[in-house]
């Protein structure tokens, strides 16, 4: 036999139709618990009545269909936007994951910098070509693209082309 009183929450649940289980035995003889349970049953009815009264006399505005209609034209449709956003987010994440290892190793720097000592002096390049990495050096640098890390040489300006007629 349970000698301890039932908890308030337990009684509140019982008042709303929860199965009593072991509590049934206690409730048969415990007057204080019976009273509390009766309180909750009464309270339920009063809550319903109070809310109903409140709702009935609530200051309900008159319908404003025009307000809704005018906003409907400008309301964004959420579903397609969300899908596109999710797809873009996934795409960006995948891209970032693919690029991150290269970026961390510095392989994404201008490729012409990663040159092993060339056996012959490279052909002179136009100034703009050197600066942007577009020019004859590209072929060499592409050849050296790989997964192995190598020391990056400091930038050395290409040799001055021999003067004509020298």
């Amino acid at each position, binding site marked *: 036999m349970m000698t301890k009183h039932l908890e308030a929450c337990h009684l509140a649940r019982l008042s*709303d139709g929860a199965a009593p289980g072991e509590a049934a035995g206690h409730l048969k003889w415990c007057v204080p618990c019976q009273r509390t349970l009766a309180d909750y049953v009464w309270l339920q009815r009063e809550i319903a009545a109070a809310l109903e009264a409140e709702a009935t006399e609530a200051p309900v505005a008159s319908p404003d269909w025009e307000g809704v209609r005018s906003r409907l034209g400008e309301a964004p449709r959420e579903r397609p936007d969300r899908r596109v956003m999710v797809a873009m987010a996934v795409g960006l994440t995948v891209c970032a994951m693919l690029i991150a290892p290269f970026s961390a190793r510095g392989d994404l720097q201008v490729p012409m910098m990663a040159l092993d000592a060339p056996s012959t002096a490279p052909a002179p390049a136009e100034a703009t070509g050197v600066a942007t990495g577009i020019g004859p050096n590209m072929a060499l640098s592409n050849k050296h693209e790989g997964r192995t890390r190598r020391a990056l040489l400091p930038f050395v300006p290409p040799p001055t082309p021999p003067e004509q007629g020298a």
Partner: protein
Amino acid sequence: MNEEWTEIKAITRALSGDQTSQRKIYEAYFPAASRLAYLLLRDGMDAEEVVQDAFVYAFGNLERYDAARGSFWTWLRVILVSRCRNKRRRKRIARVSLEVLESLGQTPRDPEPSSDPANALDRWDTRRAVYKALESVSPGARDALVLRYYEGLAYREIAEILGCSNDAARSRVAHGKVQLRRQLSGEARQLIQERGAARTAGVG
């Protein structure tokens, strides 16, 4: 059955952009939506704003409504309750005292007419006390109480709307009732003390 069929028909037409059907749906559910929003927010203007938001969202995303899962009102109610909760969160709603609400004319003003004024007054006092005590209940528990005892929803439905488990919904309702009872007991004690003091003063 006929009513359901009409609603589905109206929704089908509304989906294709028929504004007459949209308007019919709006007018059919506006009163119920307004009352529920008012009970949850306890503010007429906030309720009006939230109800409009909910309808705009519902009509803008009508293709998401699945008649097989429930009535339009069931779906709209989920949207509405969610918006009410967001609104409350944003506003960190101040618990407005009953006196202030009364001064704004936003509470039940007069007890319903009755042939027995004493009984009517008793009922009015009880309702007023319960109404006042409901203000002291935590928002989560209050939402659950409104959905359970005003909307008359099953715990499964409450759980779906509030985004929690059945057991959590049951707990919220139970906690709400415990808070309410505690509050009412305190008030009753205070009333008894006040009456006792008045009686003593009268005798003295």
